[in-house]
């Protein structure tokens, strides 16, 4: 069953005075099945972030449709969008986006508090997640007191705690050192094995190589995709590298 369906997505940015038009997305179509772990790769400026913003309902497409779990995003009313996002999507950002005013624990609770869950229930949900992500001991600390990797794990916990249909991750390893990156990717893979659908935008080959499918975007279009099949992470890594080389040298598109 496909949880996310994207059809013919187009996004055109007009500059402020309507002069130059930039086509960030030309024609993007793909779908994500439940339980999949999809990585979207592309160079800077290829439209990755635009795509993610549209999927997150933070931005509106110029044309095309996004259907999340059978629901067309276009049909969700403006006033209900925030609540829709909160209930169906989990976010992990490159720069963590944790709030300095909250402890890590409260940061993780934020989306649940907004839906009006009791403290008891939130705590019960948090404990196994915190255990799995290895942040149980850090819950009472504030974001400015912990390392980047720890912050990102708290952000992952925040994304997971609502049991979202889909986790959207935007360069989650972008601001992390290599050790934290490895840990985080392992945790992502594990979360995915438990059935969580993940869509990750990245330009790190390493991050992409733990996913089950990699989509390549170039010039606003889905250019190519690689299924993991029975490959190991290393084999997938190699395939991705090769594809990127081709993309960079521009040898294929004729």
């Amino acid at each position, binding site marked *: 069953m496909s949880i996310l369906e994207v059809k013919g997505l187009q996004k055109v940015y007009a500059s402020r005075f309507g002069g130059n038009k930039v086509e960030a997305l030309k024609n993007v179509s793909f779908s994500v099945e439940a339980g999949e772990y999809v990585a979207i790769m592309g160079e800077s400026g290829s439209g990755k972030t635009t795509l993610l913003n549209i999927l997150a309902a933070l931005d509106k497409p110029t044309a095309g449709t996004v259907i999340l779990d059978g629901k067309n995003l276009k049909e969700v009313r403006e006033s209900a969008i925030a609540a829709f996002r909160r209930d169906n999507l989990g976010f992990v950002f490159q720069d963590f986006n944790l709030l*300095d*005013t909250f402890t890590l624990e409260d940061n993780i609770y934020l989306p649940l508090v*907004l839906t*009006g869950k009791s403290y008891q229930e939130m705590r019960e949900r948090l404990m196994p997640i915190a255990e799995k992500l290895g942040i149980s001991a850090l819950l009472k600390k504030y974001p400015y007191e912990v390392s980047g990797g720890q912050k990102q794990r708290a952000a992952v916990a925040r994304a997971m705690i609502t049991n979202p249909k889909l986790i959207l991750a935007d360069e989650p390893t972008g601001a992390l050192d290599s050790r934290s990156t490895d840990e985080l990717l392992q945790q992502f893979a594990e979360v995915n094995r438990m059935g969580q659908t993940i869509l990750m935008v990245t330009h790190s080959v390493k991050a992409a190589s733990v996913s089950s499918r990699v989509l390549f975007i170039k010039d606003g279009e889905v250019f190519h995709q690689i299924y993991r099949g029975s490959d190991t992470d290393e084999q997938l890594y190699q395939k991705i590298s090769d594809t990127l080389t081709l993309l960079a040298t521009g040898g294929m598109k004729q």
Partner: protein
Amino acid sequence: MKIGFYPRLAADGIRKNKRMFTPFILTCAGMVMMFYIIMYLAVSSVLDSLIGAETLRQMFALGSWVIAVFAAIFLFYTNSFLIRRRKKEFGLYNMLGMGKRNIARILFWETLITAVVSISLGLVGGIAFSKFAELGMVNTMHGEVTYDLSVSGVAVVRCLQVFGVIFFLLLLNSIRQVRFSSAISLLRSENAGEKPPKGNWLFGILGIALLAGAYYLAATIENPVAALFVFFAAVVMVIVGTYLAMISGSVLFCRMLQKKKSYYYKPNHFVSVSSMVYRMKRNGAGLASICILATMVLVIMASTACLYFGERDVIESRYPRDINLEFRFDELSDFADERTQILKNGVMAELEARNVTPQNAYYYRSANLYGVIRDDVVEVNSVFISEAEAINSSYLFYFVPLADYNEVMGTHETLDEGEALLYSYRTDFNTDRITFRGGESFQIKKKIDAFTGSGDTAMDMLSSLMLVIPDLETGLQQIDNIAVYEGSKLLQMKWICNLDTELTPEEQITLYHDLTNTFLNDSVKETLGYVGVYTSSQEFEQDDFYGLFGSLFYLGMILSFVFLLATVLIIYYKQISEGYEDQARFAIMQKVGMTKREIRKSINSQLLTVFFFPLILAAIHMCFAFPIVRKLLLMFNLNNVILFAATTGISLLIFAVFYTIVYRLTSNAYYKIVSDAREEKG
């Protein structure tokens, strides 16, 4: 090129942080303006024609120091927002190779520019405001009285001095903060939340102790005029105490809310409580500032309004009837009934000759003198007494014969020899027997609680005791004999005659002048048998009172207005600066799924949580200021507690409504700032 570098960098910094600096400069200018106006009133000639000008002047002079202390504390508070924002920038400069010394130079220029701009703005505002106030002054005065309000050099110089020092201290504080932190901690400082102050308990206890001390002083000061310095010390204690108590109180309160899980983890409390904890100290300081200004507004508004609306009261207690006559004698024998009768007939004849029929008239004989109660005995000829005695145990004693009392009051009291009825005015003096040293002694038969007295009691600041005794002529001989100072008698003897007429105000004034001239005539004095006379007319005196109370009322309104303006600035500043701080946070929360409605709700929740604190504390302050202000009002003969309570209540209400409106409006500004923050990310 090199000379202009730092100033230019500083000016650039201010321009780029316009949205932080504009409210800051505005609040500074507001403080300068407030200080200028108070200082101006203290030194200008505006007060000259008012009764008690010296006292008022002294109050304004001391008041200006109170404002200076307040301004210093408050500007430190506002400046802390600014430093926090700027630290990041300075961290970056530091990283790019600029030394702390260079940053200090930028800071110096920045402070200089801010100081110059805000002090000039404030002075211009203050001068313009005092000019503008002049127009209204004449209006309230019921005519004629005019004051020229102009620029006061002394006030300007004092403004420059005080705010020069404050800005210098602000600069030192900023430099200190930059100096003692590394580039990295500067860069990150904006993210870190406030730690609760070390020894929060200590500050809290100190604050409460200061408040308690100030309250104690307020409750025990007997004469606020004599103890003006103590009074203002109490005011400063209240200010400092309020800050300390509010800051540690709000830290404690926020912690408590956060600990209470069922409250904290609610959609509308979650965000607001956490951001209050995040800036708990500044939050407390902001609330304390509001509270202090609220108290100032309340005291001033309530007392001057009370004076203004009570002026009828004052005039009537001071001048009981349309025409009031007081004839003086020298000898106790002049109190003989037949002597009084001659006088009365003479007065009636004069009235009749002018076709005046007396209405509501009453007449009585009275003898009075000052006495100090020492060891339960009244000393009547001690001229030298200490100030404490003057305030606490001296009284004006009145003696009225029983016959006159019964006639005036329409009662049928009886007294035996050596007995007396006691009426105490402005005092709750209570005793069974009053003995005069070397004189008569009176057994108090009972206490009475009313007498239509002459204006004397009302005019005198001392408390007075009235004794109704069987007969003046025979009952006071010993006292009369001993109450002598350097050959002159201390016992004042008089016959009082107060009456209403049916005349128009103009006719009353004509009659008043006419009667005064007649009774001052020596041959009339001789015929009727008195040595001196004092005449007064309600209509004639009332203009003066309107002038006096009108101008006091006006002063009060101006001051209240200035303080209200400062309150608006504080609230505005609080909302705007917090708004910009919270902008990024609300952007994140919107990404995570917070709706605009929820933002609204959480703003309202914050509002309701802390909104009433300053009001409640201001009301408590007001309760303790109440006795002092009452005593000050007594100076003006106003003894109407109910009216004062009413004006206090109404002032509180007006302030609360005003405060609510301002809070609502500014919280809209806050909402706009935080909800528009859909920060665009690449």
